[in-house]
């Protein structure tokens, strides 16, 4: 086991439920029917598929990406390493070198054979400092990737690093997926991705559709069942749900309680859920008065009622959280600052000065609600909050340049939060947007990074969560939970891990038109 054990357990349980579900379905219609095109309604336009060029890689992007490209390994439902393009991984004795043997006889959609060169070229590209790979802070322990022979590669680490395999498996970033070196060299990868996956890119009309077709030369015999997958970006969730109802789409991504509720009542629909890690947060700028004073931050944290936010604004489609490791991870008491106006008022009284804060939020309905909620709660303790709605770019600019006080923000849903917490809270990190400085925190972050014992590391991570709750550089708005709605006729094994729904093995139980 190389990752958080308890999170595995939860996932395992969830997977079991799903598996039994799938089992029932398979019993009813045992034989997968080949053919048909699945239409998937996504929330946003895809950002592209080049690991260097693509930065805003969202969950839906990852879903599409996972059927075009493949990783060396995946986690299976039991938390065991599942060979994909890699066949086996071996760790050296000093725990600093990973040797990985690769699958033979696989080729990319463009005909390029998959060899160690492709893996090395891809990783070398990511590791090259000039390339400024956006996730480079999370892979700093990797020193180099070397080709041993045509189908063996070696990863050399700077120190023993537990999250390494996770880095190779996490579907939420582009780094683990091996693209065709030819397409990368020709600079086509971003708009017309080429991988080894079961589906091949056919057409991308921005704002309208992203079309994939069956890869006839896929290395897994008999797969995939579908003729193709079409992704349709539909930013309006009601539109998206309506399209599912009226048959324009077969599956949709959603994060709205209203649509989920409707789908659960509708017997034509199936609702898939996956718990995630990370969290929806308010990020607090600890470098800027009055939030440089922990009293004010703590007061705000006590004033904030996460449960109301989760219920009212998210309609309970995300969980209540006390730490960013997902609901399946038990950390015990991490000192979460529960909603308590009295305590908050005392803290503000202790601060002794009037507090007025500007809160940035995205100018969506939900963003607006978050701002208004914070404003309402803060009002109760005599703190004035002015919500300011902005589109994504300007919010990023303000936060990145430190010209903000409070902003809606998010801890991404990586399966291993260690690296991302490191880059978010280490005082030397370039991504420490909250400006949080604490020697204790720095120590914990460094220790968890090099810790070789999983249990010890988990304890360290929980301690980090406690520190966060103690000093409040962020306030939790809610955890992450992912939802996919599908028609009954969408069948087949449906792995849904950390928000990524595996579409590759699906098939459609309907008469071809």
């Amino acid at each position: 086991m190389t990752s958080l054990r308890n999170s595995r357990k939860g996932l395992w349980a969830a997977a079991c439920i799903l598996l039994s579900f799938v089992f029932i379905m398979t019993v009813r219609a045992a034989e997968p029917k080949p053919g048909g095109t699945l239409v998937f309604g996504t929330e946003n336009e895809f950002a592209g598929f080049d690991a260097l060029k693509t930065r805003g890689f969202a969950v839906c992007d990852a879903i599409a990406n996972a059927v075009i490209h493949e990783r060396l390994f995946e986690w299976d439902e039991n938390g065991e390493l599942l060979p994909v393009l890699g066949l086996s991984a071996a760790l050296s004795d000093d725990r600093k070198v990973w040797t990985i043997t690769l699958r033979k006889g696989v080729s990319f959609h463009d005909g390029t054979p998959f060899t160690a060169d492709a893996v090395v070229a891809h990783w070398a590209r990511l590791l090259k400092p000039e390339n400024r790979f956006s996730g480079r802070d999370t892979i700093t322990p990797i020193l180099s990737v070397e080709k041993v022979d045509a189908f063996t590669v070696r990863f050399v680490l700077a120190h023993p690093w537990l999250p390494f395999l996770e880095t190779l498996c996490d579907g939420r970033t582009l780094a683990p997926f091996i693209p065709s070196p030819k397409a990368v060299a020709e600079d086509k990868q971003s708009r017309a991705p080429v991988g080894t996956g079961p589906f091949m890119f056919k057409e991308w009309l921005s704002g309208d559709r992203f079309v994939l077709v069956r890869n006839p030369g896929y290395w897994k015999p008999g797969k995939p069942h579908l003729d193709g997958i079409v992704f349709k970006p539909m930013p309006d969730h009601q539109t998206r749900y309506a399209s599912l109802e009226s048959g324009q789409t077969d599956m949709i991504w959603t994060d709205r309680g209203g649509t989920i509720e409707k789908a659960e009542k509708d017997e034509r629909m199936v609702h898939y859920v996956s718990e995630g890690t990370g969290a929806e947060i308010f990020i607090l700028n600890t470098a800027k008065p009055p939030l440089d004073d922990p009293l004010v931050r703590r007061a705000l944290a006590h004033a904030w009622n996460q449960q109301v936010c989760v219920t009212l604004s998210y309609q309970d489609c995300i969980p209540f959280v006390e730490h960013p490791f997902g609901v399946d991870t038990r950390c015990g008491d991490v000192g979460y600052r529960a909603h308590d106006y009295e305590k908050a008022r005392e803290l503000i009284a202790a601060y002794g000065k009037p507090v007025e804060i500007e809160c940035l939020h995205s100018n969506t309905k939900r963003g607006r609600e978050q701002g208004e909620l914070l404003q309402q709660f803060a009002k109760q303790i005599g703190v004035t909050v002015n919500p300011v709605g902005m589109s994504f770019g300007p919010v990023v600019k303000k936060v990145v340049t430190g010209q903000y006080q409070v902003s809606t923000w998010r801890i991404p849903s990586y399966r291993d939060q260690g690296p991302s917490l490191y880059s978010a809270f280490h005082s030397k990190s370039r991504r420490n947007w909250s400006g949080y400085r604490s020697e204790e925190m720095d120590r914990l972050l460094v220790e968890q990074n090099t810790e070789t014992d999983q249990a010890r590391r988990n304890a360290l991570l929980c301690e980090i969560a406690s520190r966060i709750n103690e000093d409040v550089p962020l306030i939790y708005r809610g955890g992450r939970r992912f939802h996919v709605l599908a028609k009954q006729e969408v069948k087949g094994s449906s792995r849904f891990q950390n928000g990524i729904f595996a579409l590759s093995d699906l098939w459609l139980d309907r008469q071809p038109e």
Partner: protein
Amino acid sequence: MSALGKRALHLFLVVFAASSVTFLMVDLLPGDAAYQIAGDTATLEDVQAIREELGLNRSLVLRYMNWLADVARGDLGVSYLTREPVREAIMARLPVTIELMIAAQLIALVLSVPAGIYSGYRPRSCIDRILGSTSFAVMSIPVFVMALVLIYLFALKLGWLPATGYVPLSADPVANIRSMLLPALSIALVEWVPLMRVLRSDMIDTLHEDYILMARSKGLPTHTILFRHALRPSLFTLVTLFGIQVGHLIGGALIVETIFALPGIGRLLIGAIFSRDIIVVQGCILFIAVAYVAVNFLVDISYTLLDPRIRRGGGGWLTAPHIR
């Protein structure tokens, strides 16, 4: 200078002014495309690198000059965000916008012309009153409410038509028409009202003209008088208004495109504005401005088709109707 030359100059000036103002305005907006691209995991260095890569660190004037030079060569540039050539991006959305526009305006015409003729012919009649008051009520319903009501009714309750999505005409003509019907209807139901009202009022005026009396004194039947004698001279305001509406629709029926998830120009533009993708914004503005001027030109031409007095340049004793 010839009329055509004047118009070309006018077009050029309008388009140039619109594009420079846009460039300036989008540049003044906080946060540039680099932040959008960098996303929430970026560092300042990343942003800086992206800015360099995109050429965003150069001065505004320089970037504008570059863009102009590209446009002069027929190249609208490449989107900062998606790296999609802007010309292709616009061309891909054009069929949607044009189809929506044509469908909406056709429905609007089909509704407004007979209604306008009839209520102009029989003002204050029962039907005219009904048309008048319903049209007023309909006119007061915002497009977004209309669209929601239509979806609720026809897509969710009755299930006759798809709620959303766009099927290209080439893919499936029937599905294409079905997918366009509701969006077009929600625009048309709001737009036909002013068309009907101006036609009605012009029709009333025309029917008071002496030449209608003359036609009646010739013993011609009513339908001949209405359609052959009265309709054409009554179309001026209608055509003008029609042109204005089309001009607006070319810019994209933003709300309708959003609600019905149609990949049109309007959505491309607002997406680009939100993400500060100035190249795409510029391309769209260029296109919209050119289309706007072109539509006006077509409206002017239609005036001359409608009234021979303008076509032949006229004698010394008449003045052409005022054209905007």
